[in-house]
C-alpha cells in the first residue's frame, strides 16, 4: 500500500475537524514551508521522524556507465534525509511511540 498526500489530508479532515478541501490546502502549505526552507539551503529536522539536509556536491569526473564515455558532472546541491533513531527503532519493532 502507498500513503499519498490525499490520504494525509483525509486523516487531518477526519481527526481535526476540517473540510476535505481545507485539509488539502493545509497539507500543501505544510509541504511548501518545508520545500521553501530546503530550497533556501536550510536543514529541516522533525524530532522523532527524521532530518532533511541540503548537501553541496563538488563537480567530478564521471562516466556514462553504458558507453564508458567520460564526462564532467557539475557541482550540485542535493537533498538527503536521515531517519531519526526513534523511527528506526519503531520500524524494526513494529510499534509506534504515540503521544509526543
Amino acid at each position, binding site marked *: *500500500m*502507498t*500513503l*499519498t*498526500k490525499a*490520504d*494525509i489530508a483525509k*486523516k*487531518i479532515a477526519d*481527526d*481535526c475537524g476540517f473540510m476535505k478541501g481545507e485539509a488539502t*490546502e*493545509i*497539507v500543501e*502549505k*505544510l*509541504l*511548501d*514551508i*518545508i*520545500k521553501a*526552507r*530546503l*530550497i*533556501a539551503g*536550510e*536543514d*529541516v*529536522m*522533525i*524530532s*522523532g*521522524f*527524521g532530518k*532533511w539536509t*541540503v548537501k553541496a556536491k563538488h563537480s567530478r569526473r564521471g562516466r556514462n556507465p553504458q558507453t564508458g564515455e567520460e564526462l564532467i558532472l557539475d557541482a*550540485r*546541491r*542535493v*537533498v*538527503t*534525509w536521515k*531517519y531519526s533513531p526513534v*523511527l*528506526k527503532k*519503531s*520500524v*524494526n519493532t*513494529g*510499534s*509506534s511511540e*504515540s503521544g*509526543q
Partner: protein
Amino acid sequence: MNKSDLIEALAKQADLPIRKSEEIVNLVFDTMSKALIAGDRIEIRGFGSFMVKTYQGYVGRNPKTGEKIEVTEKRLPFFKTGKELKEKVDGEE
C-alpha cells in the same frame, strides 16, 4: 528549521491557532511514521517518496578477535527526493 518552527510557520501561513497547527503537524508525521512501520511506501508528488528497505541478517566477524557475530535482519526507511524539489534545490543559490 525544527518542528516548533514548522508549527509556528504553518499557524501563520494557514491562519490557525498554534495548538491546532501543533496537532496537525504531529498528526502528519505520526501518520507517515505509521505507514513506514507498516512497511508501506509514502509518495508525495513534487516532494519525494519514502520506502522501507529490508536487509537480511548475516553472520559477521569481529575483525579484531575473529569472533563470530550474528547480525540480525533490519529494516531502514529511505527518502528519494522528488523531481520538482530536486530541480529547485539545485537551481537556486
